Protein backbone atom coordinates (compact mmCIF):
# COMPACT_ATOMS: atom_id res chain seq x y z
CA UNK A 1 0.00 0.00 0.00
CA UNK A 2 2.82 2.40 0.89
CA UNK A 3 5.47 0.92 -1.41
CA UNK A 4 3.93 2.23 -4.65
CA UNK A 5 4.12 5.96 -3.91
CA UNK A 6 7.53 5.60 -2.23
CA UNK A 7 8.99 3.95 -5.32
CA UNK A 8 7.49 6.55 -7.69
CA UNK A 9 8.63 9.49 -5.58
CA UNK A 10 12.05 7.90 -5.04
CA UNK A 11 12.57 7.43 -8.79
CA UNK A 12 11.47 11.01 -9.46
CA UNK A 13 13.91 12.42 -6.89
CA UNK A 14 16.81 10.33 -8.18
CA UNK A 15 15.93 11.38 -11.73
CA UNK A 16 15.84 15.04 -10.76
CA UNK A 17 19.27 14.89 -9.09
CA UNK A 18 20.69 13.06 -12.12
CA UNK A 19 19.31 15.69 -14.50
CA UNK A 20 20.52 18.64 -12.44
CA UNK A 21 24.16 17.75 -12.00
CA UNK A 22 24.91 15.08 -14.56
CA UNK A 23 28.02 14.96 -16.67
CA UNK A 24 26.68 12.01 -18.70
CA UNK A 25 26.69 12.35 -22.52
CA UNK A 26 24.12 14.83 -23.79
CA UNK A 27 22.07 12.21 -25.61
CA UNK A 28 21.68 10.14 -22.41
CA UNK A 29 20.59 13.21 -20.45
CA UNK A 30 18.06 14.13 -23.13
CA UNK A 31 16.54 10.64 -23.19
CA UNK A 32 16.39 10.48 -19.37
CA UNK A 33 14.90 13.99 -19.27
CA UNK A 34 12.11 13.08 -21.66
CA UNK A 35 11.28 9.83 -19.87
CA UNK A 36 11.45 11.50 -16.47
CA UNK A 37 9.30 14.47 -17.45
CA UNK A 38 6.65 12.63 -19.42
CA UNK A 39 6.66 9.42 -17.38
CA UNK A 40 6.67 11.25 -14.06
CA UNK A 41 3.50 13.16 -14.88
CA UNK A 42 1.68 10.01 -15.99
CA UNK A 43 2.96 8.01 -13.00
CA UNK A 44 1.73 10.62 -10.51
CA UNK A 45 -1.71 10.58 -12.14
CA UNK A 46 -1.94 6.78 -12.13
CA UNK A 47 -0.87 6.72 -8.50
CA UNK A 48 -3.55 9.22 -7.52
CA UNK A 49 -6.16 7.39 -9.61
CA UNK A 50 -5.35 4.03 -7.98
CA UNK A 51 -5.63 5.41 -4.45
CA UNK A 52 -8.73 7.49 -4.96
CA UNK A 53 -10.51 4.60 -6.71
CA UNK A 54 -10.15 2.58 -3.50
CA UNK A 55 -12.03 5.19 -1.45
CA UNK A 56 -15.77 5.14 -0.76
CA UNK A 57 -17.86 6.62 -3.57
CA UNK A 58 -18.90 9.68 -1.56
CA UNK A 59 -15.30 10.66 -0.73
CA UNK A 60 -14.27 9.87 -4.30
CA UNK A 61 -16.74 12.48 -5.54
CA UNK A 62 -15.08 15.09 -3.37
CA UNK A 63 -11.47 14.23 -4.15
CA UNK A 64 -11.70 13.43 -7.88
CA UNK A 65 -12.16 17.08 -8.99
CA UNK A 66 -9.02 18.02 -7.05
CA UNK A 67 -7.02 15.46 -9.00
CA UNK A 68 -8.47 16.46 -12.36
CA UNK A 69 -8.52 20.24 -12.07
CA UNK A 70 -6.04 20.71 -9.22
CA UNK A 71 -2.75 20.44 -11.17
CA UNK A 72 -3.88 22.99 -13.75
CA UNK A 73 -5.17 25.41 -11.11
CA UNK A 74 -1.95 25.15 -9.09
CA UNK A 75 0.24 25.70 -12.18
CA UNK A 76 -1.80 28.66 -13.42
CA UNK A 77 -1.85 30.19 -9.96
CA UNK A 78 1.87 29.78 -9.47
CA UNK A 79 3.05 30.75 -12.97
CA UNK A 80 0.51 33.37 -14.03
CA UNK A 81 -1.80 34.68 -11.31
CA UNK A 82 0.69 35.11 -8.49
CA UNK A 83 3.39 36.63 -10.78
CA UNK A 84 0.90 39.16 -12.14
CA UNK A 85 0.24 40.44 -8.63
CA UNK A 86 3.95 40.40 -7.83
CA UNK A 87 4.77 42.30 -11.05
CA UNK A 88 2.18 44.94 -10.17
CA UNK A 89 3.83 45.25 -6.76
CA UNK A 90 7.36 45.44 -8.20
CA UNK A 91 6.30 48.16 -10.64
CA UNK A 92 6.07 50.59 -7.70
CA UNK A 93 9.62 49.87 -6.51
CA UNK A 94 13.10 50.94 -7.64
CA UNK A 95 15.82 48.89 -9.36
CA UNK A 96 16.68 47.04 -6.14
CA UNK A 97 12.99 46.18 -5.58
CA UNK A 98 13.28 47.46 -2.01
CA UNK A 99 12.53 51.19 -2.15
CA UNK A 100 8.99 52.38 -2.90
CA UNK A 101 9.02 54.97 -5.69
CA UNK A 102 5.34 55.55 -6.31
CA UNK A 103 4.45 56.07 -9.96
CA UNK A 104 8.00 56.93 -11.04
CA UNK A 105 8.36 53.78 -13.19
CA UNK A 106 5.08 54.52 -14.93
CA UNK A 107 6.18 58.09 -15.59
CA UNK A 108 9.33 56.64 -17.14
CA UNK A 109 7.38 54.07 -19.16
CA UNK A 110 5.05 56.69 -20.58
CA UNK A 111 7.36 59.69 -21.10
CA UNK A 112 10.99 58.57 -21.57
CA UNK A 113 12.10 59.23 -25.19
CA UNK A 114 13.00 55.54 -25.70
CA UNK A 115 9.50 54.63 -24.57
CA UNK A 116 7.59 57.20 -26.61
CA UNK A 117 9.59 55.92 -29.59
CA UNK A 118 8.42 52.39 -28.70
CA UNK A 119 4.78 53.43 -28.48
CA UNK A 120 4.98 55.26 -31.80
CA UNK A 121 6.63 52.27 -33.46
CA UNK A 122 4.16 49.85 -31.89
CA UNK A 123 1.32 51.94 -33.28
CA UNK A 124 2.87 51.54 -36.75
CA UNK A 125 3.29 47.79 -36.18
CA UNK A 126 -0.33 47.47 -35.07
CA UNK A 127 -1.86 49.49 -37.90
CA UNK A 128 0.37 48.50 -40.83
CA UNK A 129 1.41 45.01 -39.70
CA UNK A 130 -2.07 43.86 -38.75
CA UNK A 131 -3.75 45.80 -41.55
CA UNK A 132 -1.66 44.39 -44.38
CA UNK A 133 -1.59 40.85 -42.96
CA UNK A 134 -5.40 40.75 -42.80
CA UNK A 135 -5.82 42.51 -46.15
CA UNK A 136 -3.37 40.25 -48.02
CA UNK A 137 -4.77 37.20 -46.23
CA UNK A 138 -8.29 38.08 -47.34
CA UNK A 139 -7.32 38.89 -50.94
CA UNK A 140 -5.23 35.73 -51.35
CA UNK A 141 -7.90 33.54 -49.75
CA UNK A 142 -10.61 35.00 -52.01
CA UNK A 143 -8.47 34.62 -55.14
CA UNK A 144 -7.19 31.13 -54.32
CA UNK A 145 -10.75 29.90 -53.77
CA UNK A 146 -11.48 30.54 -57.43
CA UNK A 147 -8.64 28.36 -58.74
CA UNK A 148 -8.24 24.61 -59.21
CA UNK A 149 -7.87 22.68 -55.96
CA UNK A 150 -4.24 21.57 -56.39
CA UNK A 151 -3.23 25.13 -57.28
CA UNK A 152 -5.12 26.59 -54.33
CA UNK A 153 -3.48 24.14 -51.92
CA UNK A 154 0.02 24.77 -53.28
CA UNK A 155 -0.28 28.55 -53.11
CA UNK A 156 -1.78 28.42 -49.64
CA UNK A 157 0.94 26.05 -48.36
CA UNK A 158 3.71 28.34 -49.61
CA UNK A 159 2.20 31.43 -48.04
CA UNK A 160 1.34 29.63 -44.82
CA UNK A 161 4.83 28.15 -44.42
CA UNK A 162 6.48 31.09 -42.56
CA UNK A 163 4.03 30.38 -39.68
CA UNK A 164 5.97 27.18 -38.97
CA UNK A 165 9.40 28.69 -38.44
CA UNK A 166 10.77 30.69 -35.54
CA UNK A 167 10.87 34.45 -35.69
CA UNK A 168 14.63 34.27 -35.12
CA UNK A 169 14.90 32.07 -38.21
CA UNK A 170 12.59 34.37 -40.16
CA UNK A 171 14.71 37.33 -39.08
CA UNK A 172 17.89 35.69 -40.40
CA UNK A 173 16.10 35.08 -43.72
CA UNK A 174 15.26 38.79 -43.92
CA UNK A 175 18.64 40.00 -42.62
CA UNK A 176 19.99 38.39 -45.77
CA UNK A 177 17.31 40.00 -47.96
CA UNK A 178 18.28 43.41 -46.55
CA UNK A 179 22.07 42.75 -46.60
CA UNK A 180 24.16 45.77 -47.56
CA UNK A 181 27.63 46.12 -49.09
CA UNK A 182 29.26 49.50 -49.72
CA UNK A 183 28.97 50.82 -53.31
CA UNK A 184 31.41 49.15 -55.71
CA UNK A 185 31.01 45.70 -54.11
CA UNK A 186 28.67 43.06 -55.49
CA UNK A 187 25.33 43.36 -53.68
CA UNK A 188 24.37 39.97 -52.21
CA UNK A 189 21.12 41.06 -50.54
CA UNK A 190 18.30 40.76 -53.04
CA UNK A 191 16.69 44.08 -52.08
CA UNK A 192 19.88 46.04 -52.77
CA UNK A 193 20.51 44.02 -55.94
CA UNK A 194 17.06 44.93 -57.26
CA UNK A 195 17.50 48.52 -56.06
CA UNK A 196 20.87 48.79 -57.83
CA UNK A 197 19.45 47.23 -61.01
CA UNK A 198 16.82 49.99 -61.00
CA UNK A 199 19.65 52.54 -60.83
CA UNK A 200 19.72 53.25 -57.07
CA UNK A 201 22.76 53.57 -54.81
CA UNK A 202 22.99 50.66 -52.32
CA UNK A 203 21.26 51.45 -49.02
CA UNK A 204 22.00 50.18 -45.50
CA UNK A 205 18.28 49.57 -45.04
CA UNK A 206 18.28 48.62 -41.37
CA UNK A 207 20.15 51.75 -40.24
CA UNK A 208 17.79 54.13 -41.99
CA UNK A 209 14.87 55.30 -39.84
CA UNK A 210 11.91 55.38 -40.09
CA UNK A 211 12.18 53.09 -43.12
CA UNK A 212 13.81 50.36 -41.01
CA UNK A 213 10.71 49.95 -38.82
CA UNK A 214 8.62 49.49 -41.97
CA UNK A 215 11.06 46.85 -43.21
CA UNK A 216 10.75 44.99 -39.90
CA UNK A 217 6.97 45.18 -40.20
CA UNK A 218 7.30 43.50 -43.62
CA UNK A 219 8.62 40.42 -41.78
CA UNK A 220 5.56 40.33 -39.56
CA UNK A 221 3.28 40.62 -42.59
CA UNK A 222 5.25 37.84 -44.30
CA UNK A 223 4.61 35.59 -41.27
CA UNK A 224 1.04 36.53 -40.35
CA UNK A 225 -0.57 36.75 -43.79
CA UNK A 226 -0.61 32.95 -43.90
CA UNK A 227 -2.46 32.81 -40.60
CA UNK A 228 -5.08 35.34 -41.73
CA UNK A 229 -5.42 33.57 -45.08
CA UNK A 230 -6.04 30.11 -43.56
CA UNK A 231 -8.69 31.30 -41.11
CA UNK A 232 -10.43 33.59 -43.63
CA UNK A 233 -10.28 30.90 -46.30
CA UNK A 234 -12.21 28.55 -44.01
CA UNK A 235 -14.74 31.31 -43.38
CA UNK A 236 -15.14 32.03 -47.11
CA UNK A 237 -15.90 28.39 -47.79
CA UNK A 238 -18.65 28.63 -45.20
CA UNK A 239 -20.58 31.33 -47.04
CA UNK A 240 -23.78 29.62 -48.29
CA UNK A 241 -23.84 29.14 -52.06
CA UNK A 242 -27.51 30.13 -52.45
CA UNK A 243 -26.71 33.50 -50.90
CA UNK A 244 -24.06 34.11 -53.59
CA UNK A 245 -26.35 32.75 -56.32
CA UNK A 246 -29.14 35.06 -55.19
CA UNK A 247 -26.73 37.95 -55.61
CA UNK A 248 -25.79 36.98 -59.12
CA UNK A 249 -29.43 36.40 -60.14
CA UNK A 250 -30.14 39.94 -58.96
CA UNK A 251 -27.50 41.07 -61.48
CA UNK A 252 -24.66 41.92 -59.09
CA UNK A 253 -21.14 41.40 -60.47
CA UNK A 254 -18.44 39.47 -58.62
CA UNK A 255 -16.95 42.47 -56.84
CA UNK A 256 -20.36 43.68 -55.68
CA UNK A 257 -21.17 40.21 -54.37
CA UNK A 258 -17.84 40.08 -52.55
CA UNK A 259 -18.25 43.45 -50.82
CA UNK A 260 -22.01 43.37 -50.20
CA UNK A 261 -22.55 39.70 -49.33
CA UNK A 262 -19.32 37.87 -48.57
CA UNK A 263 -17.56 40.50 -46.42
CA UNK A 264 -20.56 41.19 -44.16
CA UNK A 265 -21.12 37.43 -43.81
CA UNK A 266 -17.56 36.76 -42.56
CA UNK A 267 -17.31 39.98 -40.54
CA UNK A 268 -17.05 38.09 -37.23
CA UNK A 269 -14.09 36.05 -38.48
CA UNK A 270 -12.33 39.16 -39.79
CA UNK A 271 -12.66 40.79 -36.35
CA UNK A 272 -11.37 37.64 -34.65
CA UNK A 273 -8.35 37.34 -36.98
CA UNK A 274 -7.55 41.04 -36.57
CA UNK A 275 -7.70 40.80 -32.77
CA UNK A 276 -5.43 37.76 -32.71
CA UNK A 277 -2.81 39.45 -34.91
CA UNK A 278 -3.07 42.68 -32.89
CA UNK A 279 -2.21 40.77 -29.70
CA UNK A 280 0.57 38.89 -31.46
CA UNK A 281 1.98 42.18 -32.78
CA UNK A 282 1.78 43.88 -29.41
CA UNK A 283 4.06 41.23 -27.94
CA UNK A 284 6.46 40.88 -30.88
CA UNK A 285 10.04 41.17 -29.73
CA UNK A 286 12.07 38.42 -31.42
CA UNK A 287 12.14 40.22 -34.77
CA UNK A 288 13.37 43.52 -33.34
CA UNK A 289 15.90 41.88 -31.02
CA UNK A 290 17.41 39.80 -33.85
CA UNK A 291 17.33 42.43 -36.61
CA UNK A 292 18.43 45.63 -34.85
CA UNK A 293 18.50 44.95 -31.10
CA UNK A 294 16.04 47.83 -30.81
CA UNK A 295 18.65 50.32 -32.08
CA UNK A 296 18.43 52.91 -34.89
CA UNK A 297 14.96 54.03 -33.81
CA UNK A 298 13.28 50.62 -34.06
CA UNK A 299 12.48 49.98 -30.38
CA UNK A 300 9.08 48.43 -29.50
CA UNK A 301 7.32 47.91 -26.15
CA UNK A 302 8.00 44.19 -25.74
CA UNK A 303 11.70 44.63 -26.51
CA UNK A 304 11.91 47.68 -24.25
CA UNK A 305 10.62 45.40 -21.49
CA UNK A 306 13.36 42.89 -22.23
CA UNK A 307 16.05 45.58 -22.43
CA UNK A 308 15.00 47.14 -19.11
CA UNK A 309 14.96 43.82 -17.28
CA UNK A 310 17.91 41.96 -18.74
CA UNK A 311 20.21 44.65 -20.12
CA UNK A 312 19.66 47.68 -17.85
CA UNK A 313 18.69 45.64 -14.76
CA UNK A 314 15.70 47.84 -13.97
CA UNK A 315 13.02 45.34 -12.83
CA UNK A 316 10.79 48.17 -11.58
CA UNK A 317 10.65 49.81 -14.99
CA UNK A 318 10.30 46.46 -16.77
CA UNK A 319 7.39 45.56 -14.49
CA UNK A 320 5.66 48.86 -15.22
CA UNK A 321 6.02 48.16 -18.97
CA UNK A 322 4.60 44.65 -18.48
CA UNK A 323 1.60 46.08 -16.61
CA UNK A 324 1.02 48.52 -19.47
CA UNK A 325 1.09 45.61 -21.94
CA UNK A 326 -1.46 43.82 -19.77
CA UNK A 327 -3.71 46.87 -19.69
CA UNK A 328 -3.50 47.11 -23.49
CA UNK A 329 -4.89 43.56 -23.89
CA UNK A 330 -7.68 43.85 -21.30
CA UNK A 331 -10.33 44.89 -23.87
CA UNK A 332 -9.70 41.61 -25.70
CA UNK A 333 -9.76 39.70 -22.44
CA UNK A 334 -13.10 41.26 -21.59
CA UNK A 335 -14.43 40.48 -25.07
CA UNK A 336 -13.35 36.82 -24.77
CA UNK A 337 -15.05 36.48 -21.40
CA UNK A 338 -18.29 38.02 -22.62
CA UNK A 339 -18.22 35.90 -25.76
CA UNK A 340 -17.62 32.75 -23.80
CA UNK A 341 -20.43 33.37 -21.36
CA UNK A 342 -22.79 33.80 -24.29
CA UNK A 343 -21.63 30.57 -25.92
CA UNK A 344 -21.65 28.01 -23.19
CA UNK A 345 -24.61 26.42 -21.50
CA UNK A 346 -22.64 24.57 -18.88
CA UNK A 347 -21.94 27.54 -16.63
CA UNK A 348 -25.40 29.06 -16.48
Amino acid sequence: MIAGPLIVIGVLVVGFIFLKDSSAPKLVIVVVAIIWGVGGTVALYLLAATYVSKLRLSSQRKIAPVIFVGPAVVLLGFFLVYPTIETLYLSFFDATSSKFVGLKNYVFALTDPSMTESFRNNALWLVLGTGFAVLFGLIIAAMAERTKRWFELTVKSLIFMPMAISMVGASIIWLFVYAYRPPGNPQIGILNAVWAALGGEPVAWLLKGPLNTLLLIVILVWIQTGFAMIILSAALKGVPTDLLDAGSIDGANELQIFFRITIPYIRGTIIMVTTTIVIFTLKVFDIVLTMTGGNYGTQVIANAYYAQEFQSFQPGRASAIAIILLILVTPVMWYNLRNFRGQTEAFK
Partner: protein
Amino acid sequence: MTTQVTEHRSSPAARTVLYVVLTIIAVVWLIPSLGLLVTSFRHLEDINQTGWWNVLLHPGAANLTLQNYAQVTGIDKAGAGAGVDLGNAILNSIAVTIPATVIPIFIAALAAYGFAWMKFPGRAFFFIIVIALLVVPLQIALIPVLRLYIKAHVAGTFVGIWFAHTAFGLPLAIYIMYTYISSIPRDIFESAFVDGANHFTIFTRLIIPLSIPALASFAIFQFLWVWNDLLVALVFLGSTAGVQVLTVQLLNMVGAYGTDWQLLTAGAFISMIFPLAVFFSLQRYFVRGLLAGSVKG
Protein backbone atom coordinates in the same frame (compact mmCIF):
# COMPACT_ATOMS: atom_id res chain seq x y z
CA MET B 1 -19.60 23.96 -54.67
CA THR B 2 -18.78 27.63 -54.27
CA THR B 3 -15.64 27.13 -56.34
CA GLN B 4 -17.50 25.69 -59.31
CA VAL B 5 -20.19 28.36 -59.32
CA THR B 6 -17.69 31.20 -59.27
CA GLU B 7 -15.48 29.50 -61.85
CA HIS B 8 -18.36 29.37 -64.28
CA ARG B 9 -18.92 33.05 -63.82
CA SER B 10 -15.35 34.24 -64.55
CA SER B 11 -14.21 34.74 -68.12
CA PRO B 12 -11.14 32.80 -69.33
CA ALA B 13 -9.10 36.02 -69.44
CA ALA B 14 -10.00 36.88 -65.84
CA ARG B 15 -9.08 33.38 -64.80
CA THR B 16 -5.65 33.61 -66.43
CA VAL B 17 -5.00 36.87 -64.60
CA LEU B 18 -5.98 35.13 -61.36
CA TYR B 19 -3.46 32.34 -61.88
CA VAL B 20 -0.69 34.73 -62.91
CA VAL B 21 -1.20 37.08 -59.96
CA LEU B 22 -1.33 34.24 -57.44
CA THR B 23 1.80 32.68 -58.92
CA ILE B 24 3.64 35.99 -58.58
CA ILE B 25 2.51 36.37 -54.95
CA ALA B 26 3.58 32.81 -54.11
CA VAL B 27 6.99 33.34 -55.73
CA VAL B 28 7.53 36.62 -53.89
CA TRP B 29 6.64 34.84 -50.63
CA LEU B 30 9.09 32.05 -51.39
CA ILE B 31 12.08 34.13 -52.55
CA PRO B 32 13.44 35.09 -49.09
CA SER B 33 13.41 31.46 -47.87
CA LEU B 34 14.87 30.25 -51.15
CA GLY B 35 17.77 32.69 -50.75
CA LEU B 36 18.50 31.25 -47.34
CA LEU B 37 18.34 27.65 -48.53
CA VAL B 38 20.57 28.20 -51.58
CA THR B 39 23.11 30.27 -49.65
CA SER B 40 23.46 27.61 -46.95
CA PHE B 41 25.02 25.29 -49.59
CA ARG B 42 27.52 27.81 -51.00
CA HIS B 43 31.14 28.58 -50.11
CA LEU B 44 31.72 31.86 -48.29
CA GLU B 45 33.84 33.23 -51.19
CA ASP B 46 31.01 32.55 -53.65
CA ILE B 47 28.42 34.08 -51.32
CA ASN B 48 30.43 37.30 -51.14
CA GLN B 49 31.21 37.38 -54.87
CA THR B 50 27.80 36.82 -56.45
CA GLY B 51 24.15 36.94 -55.44
CA TRP B 52 22.56 33.58 -54.57
CA TRP B 53 20.16 33.87 -57.51
CA ASN B 54 23.12 33.19 -59.84
CA VAL B 55 23.01 29.58 -58.69
CA LEU B 56 19.49 29.31 -60.11
CA LEU B 57 20.38 31.25 -63.27
CA HIS B 58 23.53 29.23 -64.01
CA PRO B 59 23.07 25.90 -62.25
CA GLY B 60 26.00 24.43 -64.21
CA ALA B 61 28.50 26.80 -62.61
CA ALA B 62 27.15 26.32 -59.09
CA ASN B 63 29.80 25.08 -56.72
CA LEU B 64 27.82 23.72 -53.79
CA THR B 65 29.02 22.26 -50.50
CA LEU B 66 27.82 20.66 -47.27
CA GLN B 67 30.79 22.14 -45.41
CA ASN B 68 28.66 24.88 -43.77
CA TYR B 69 26.42 22.29 -42.14
CA ALA B 70 29.43 20.32 -40.88
CA GLN B 71 30.79 23.53 -39.36
CA VAL B 72 27.68 24.71 -37.53
CA THR B 73 26.84 21.28 -36.12
CA GLY B 74 30.33 20.88 -34.69
CA ILE B 75 31.17 17.89 -36.94
CA ASP B 76 33.91 19.98 -38.55
CA LYS B 77 35.60 21.71 -35.63
CA ALA B 78 38.16 23.68 -37.65
CA GLY B 79 37.74 26.88 -39.61
CA ALA B 80 35.12 29.58 -39.31
CA GLY B 81 32.36 28.88 -36.86
CA ALA B 82 34.58 27.01 -34.44
CA GLY B 83 32.74 27.21 -31.15
CA VAL B 84 29.32 27.05 -32.78
CA ASP B 85 27.75 23.75 -31.83
CA LEU B 86 24.19 23.54 -33.02
CA GLY B 87 24.33 19.74 -32.69
CA ASN B 88 24.16 20.27 -28.96
CA ALA B 89 21.48 22.93 -29.33
CA ILE B 90 19.30 20.54 -31.37
CA LEU B 91 19.42 18.01 -28.51
CA ASN B 92 18.58 20.76 -26.02
CA SER B 93 15.64 21.91 -28.14
CA ILE B 94 14.35 18.32 -28.28
CA ALA B 95 14.82 17.87 -24.53
CA VAL B 96 12.86 21.08 -23.89
CA THR B 97 10.15 20.59 -26.49
CA ILE B 98 8.94 17.01 -26.04
CA PRO B 99 8.08 17.18 -22.32
CA ALA B 100 6.90 20.79 -22.68
CA THR B 101 4.43 19.52 -25.29
CA VAL B 102 3.26 16.28 -23.62
CA ILE B 103 2.92 17.51 -20.01
CA PRO B 104 0.52 20.39 -20.76
CA ILE B 105 -1.63 18.17 -23.01
CA PHE B 106 -2.06 15.66 -20.23
CA ILE B 107 -2.74 18.22 -17.50
CA ALA B 108 -5.07 20.21 -19.75
CA ALA B 109 -7.04 17.12 -20.77
CA LEU B 110 -7.56 16.28 -17.09
CA ALA B 111 -8.66 19.82 -16.30
CA ALA B 112 -10.91 20.09 -19.36
CA TYR B 113 -12.66 16.85 -18.38
CA GLY B 114 -13.08 18.17 -14.84
CA PHE B 115 -14.53 21.45 -16.04
CA ALA B 116 -16.81 19.79 -18.56
CA TRP B 117 -18.20 16.84 -16.62
CA MET B 118 -17.73 17.33 -12.88
CA LYS B 119 -19.59 19.49 -10.42
CA PHE B 120 -17.46 21.11 -7.73
CA PRO B 121 -17.40 24.42 -5.88
CA GLY B 122 -15.48 27.19 -7.69
CA ARG B 123 -15.83 25.52 -11.09
CA ALA B 124 -17.17 28.61 -12.93
CA PHE B 125 -14.71 30.88 -11.11
CA PHE B 126 -11.64 28.85 -12.08
CA PHE B 127 -12.83 28.50 -15.64
CA ILE B 128 -13.30 32.25 -16.02
CA ILE B 129 -9.70 32.67 -14.86
CA VAL B 130 -8.56 30.23 -17.56
CA ILE B 131 -10.40 32.22 -20.25
CA ALA B 132 -9.05 35.51 -18.91
CA LEU B 133 -5.49 34.15 -18.99
CA LEU B 134 -5.75 33.27 -22.71
CA VAL B 135 -4.42 36.63 -23.87
CA VAL B 136 -2.24 37.63 -20.90
CA PRO B 137 1.24 38.65 -22.14
CA LEU B 138 3.96 36.36 -20.77
CA GLN B 139 6.05 39.37 -19.86
CA ILE B 140 3.80 39.86 -16.86
CA ALA B 141 5.05 36.62 -15.29
CA LEU B 142 8.72 36.37 -16.17
CA ILE B 143 10.47 38.41 -13.47
CA PRO B 144 8.70 36.92 -10.41
CA VAL B 145 8.99 33.36 -11.74
CA LEU B 146 12.66 33.81 -12.58
CA ARG B 147 13.34 35.10 -9.05
CA LEU B 148 11.64 32.09 -7.50
CA TYR B 149 13.56 29.80 -9.88
CA ILE B 150 16.88 31.31 -8.87
CA LYS B 151 16.03 30.80 -5.20
CA ALA B 152 15.00 27.19 -5.84
CA HIS B 153 18.05 26.53 -8.09
CA VAL B 154 15.94 25.50 -11.08
CA ALA B 155 16.88 28.46 -13.29
CA GLY B 156 18.87 27.02 -16.18
CA THR B 157 17.41 23.51 -15.86
CA PHE B 158 15.14 21.61 -18.25
CA VAL B 159 12.69 20.93 -15.43
CA GLY B 160 12.27 24.65 -14.82
CA ILE B 161 11.50 25.51 -18.42
CA TRP B 162 9.13 22.54 -18.87
CA PHE B 163 6.90 23.80 -16.13
CA ALA B 164 7.07 27.39 -17.36
CA HIS B 165 6.05 26.30 -20.88
CA THR B 166 3.43 23.95 -19.46
CA ALA B 167 1.79 26.69 -17.42
CA PHE B 168 1.98 29.28 -20.22
CA GLY B 169 0.44 26.81 -22.68
CA LEU B 170 -2.29 25.62 -20.33
CA PRO B 171 -4.99 28.27 -20.88
CA LEU B 172 -5.12 27.60 -24.63
CA ALA B 173 -4.80 23.85 -24.13
CA ILE B 174 -7.65 23.75 -21.62
CA TYR B 175 -9.78 25.96 -23.86
CA ILE B 176 -9.29 23.79 -26.98
CA MET B 177 -9.75 20.55 -25.03
CA TYR B 178 -12.79 21.86 -23.14
CA THR B 179 -14.51 22.86 -26.37
CA TYR B 180 -13.94 19.34 -27.69
CA ILE B 181 -14.61 17.26 -24.58
CA SER B 182 -17.76 19.16 -23.60
CA SER B 183 -19.23 18.35 -27.01
CA ILE B 184 -18.96 14.58 -26.51
CA PRO B 185 -22.54 13.26 -26.08
CA ARG B 186 -23.60 12.72 -22.47
CA ASP B 187 -25.07 9.26 -23.19
CA ILE B 188 -21.61 7.81 -23.64
CA PHE B 189 -20.67 8.75 -20.08
CA GLU B 190 -23.94 7.71 -18.55
CA SER B 191 -23.82 4.19 -19.90
CA ALA B 192 -20.23 3.91 -18.66
CA PHE B 193 -21.22 5.08 -15.18
CA VAL B 194 -24.03 2.54 -15.11
CA ASP B 195 -21.45 -0.13 -15.91
CA GLY B 196 -19.62 0.89 -12.72
CA ALA B 197 -16.81 2.95 -14.22
CA ASN B 198 -15.51 5.92 -12.22
CA HIS B 199 -14.08 9.21 -13.52
CA PHE B 200 -10.57 7.79 -13.82
CA THR B 201 -11.50 4.82 -15.98
CA ILE B 202 -13.77 7.02 -18.10
CA PHE B 203 -10.94 9.48 -18.60
CA THR B 204 -8.31 6.93 -19.63
CA ARG B 205 -10.57 4.49 -21.53
CA LEU B 206 -13.07 6.88 -23.14
CA ILE B 207 -11.98 10.51 -23.13
CA ILE B 208 -8.37 10.14 -24.21
CA PRO B 209 -9.15 7.89 -27.23
CA LEU B 210 -12.12 10.04 -28.27
CA SER B 211 -10.16 13.28 -28.03
CA ILE B 212 -7.23 12.28 -30.23
CA PRO B 213 -8.01 14.92 -32.91
CA ALA B 214 -8.09 17.74 -30.35
CA LEU B 215 -4.99 16.38 -28.62
CA ALA B 216 -3.13 16.22 -31.95
CA SER B 217 -4.15 19.78 -32.88
CA PHE B 218 -2.90 21.20 -29.64
CA ALA B 219 0.24 19.04 -29.69
CA ILE B 220 1.32 20.50 -33.04
CA PHE B 221 0.49 24.01 -31.90
CA GLN B 222 2.45 23.65 -28.68
CA PHE B 223 5.35 21.85 -30.39
CA LEU B 224 5.82 24.70 -32.86
CA TRP B 225 5.32 27.28 -30.14
CA VAL B 226 7.93 25.81 -27.80
CA TRP B 227 10.42 24.88 -30.52
CA ASN B 228 10.28 28.39 -31.98
CA ASP B 229 10.11 30.25 -28.66
CA LEU B 230 12.87 32.71 -27.91
CA LEU B 231 11.61 34.74 -24.94
CA VAL B 232 11.00 31.95 -22.42
CA ALA B 233 14.21 30.15 -23.42
CA LEU B 234 16.28 33.33 -23.10
CA VAL B 235 14.88 34.10 -19.67
CA PHE B 236 14.95 30.64 -18.10
CA LEU B 237 17.86 28.93 -19.90
CA GLY B 238 19.60 31.77 -21.72
CA SER B 239 22.68 32.50 -19.69
CA THR B 240 23.42 28.89 -18.75
CA ALA B 241 26.05 27.31 -20.97
CA GLY B 242 25.33 23.82 -22.28
CA VAL B 243 21.51 23.96 -22.19
CA GLN B 244 20.88 26.72 -24.75
CA VAL B 245 18.26 25.84 -27.34
CA LEU B 246 18.45 26.50 -31.10
CA THR B 247 16.72 29.89 -31.14
CA VAL B 248 19.03 31.26 -28.44
CA GLN B 249 22.11 29.89 -30.21
CA LEU B 250 20.97 31.43 -33.48
CA LEU B 251 20.49 34.81 -31.83
CA ASN B 252 24.01 34.56 -30.41
CA MET B 253 25.33 33.67 -33.87
CA VAL B 254 23.76 36.81 -35.35
CA GLY B 255 25.74 38.80 -32.82
CA ALA B 256 29.02 36.91 -33.19
CA TYR B 257 29.05 35.97 -36.90
CA GLY B 258 26.87 38.73 -38.38
CA THR B 259 28.49 38.60 -41.82
CA ASP B 260 29.39 34.90 -41.97
CA TRP B 261 26.33 34.15 -44.07
CA GLN B 262 27.40 30.56 -44.74
CA LEU B 263 27.07 29.83 -40.99
CA LEU B 264 23.95 31.90 -40.33
CA THR B 265 22.00 30.45 -43.25
CA ALA B 266 22.97 26.84 -42.50
CA GLY B 267 22.18 27.34 -38.81
CA ALA B 268 18.83 28.95 -39.54
CA PHE B 269 17.87 26.16 -41.92
CA ILE B 270 18.78 23.51 -39.34
CA SER B 271 16.44 25.18 -36.86
CA MET B 272 13.62 24.99 -39.42
CA ILE B 273 13.89 21.33 -40.44
CA PHE B 274 11.81 19.88 -37.58
CA PRO B 275 9.03 22.48 -37.59
CA LEU B 276 8.74 22.34 -41.39
CA ALA B 277 8.58 18.53 -41.34
CA VAL B 278 5.87 18.62 -38.67
CA PHE B 279 4.08 21.40 -40.50
CA PHE B 280 3.95 19.75 -43.91
CA SER B 281 3.09 16.27 -42.64
CA LEU B 282 0.40 17.37 -40.18
CA GLN B 283 -0.88 20.60 -41.75
CA ARG B 284 -4.49 19.44 -41.51
CA TYR B 285 -4.35 19.11 -37.71
CA PHE B 286 -2.43 22.35 -37.37
CA VAL B 287 -5.10 24.24 -39.29
CA ARG B 288 -7.80 22.66 -37.17
CA GLY B 289 -5.94 23.76 -34.03
CA LEU B 290 -5.58 27.28 -35.37
CA LEU B 291 -9.29 27.46 -36.12
CA ALA B 292 -10.14 26.27 -32.63
CA GLY B 293 -7.55 28.27 -30.77
CA SER B 294 -7.10 31.55 -32.54
CA VAL B 295 -8.02 33.40 -29.37
CA LYS B 296 -4.54 32.89 -27.97
CA GLY B 297 -2.33 35.93 -27.59
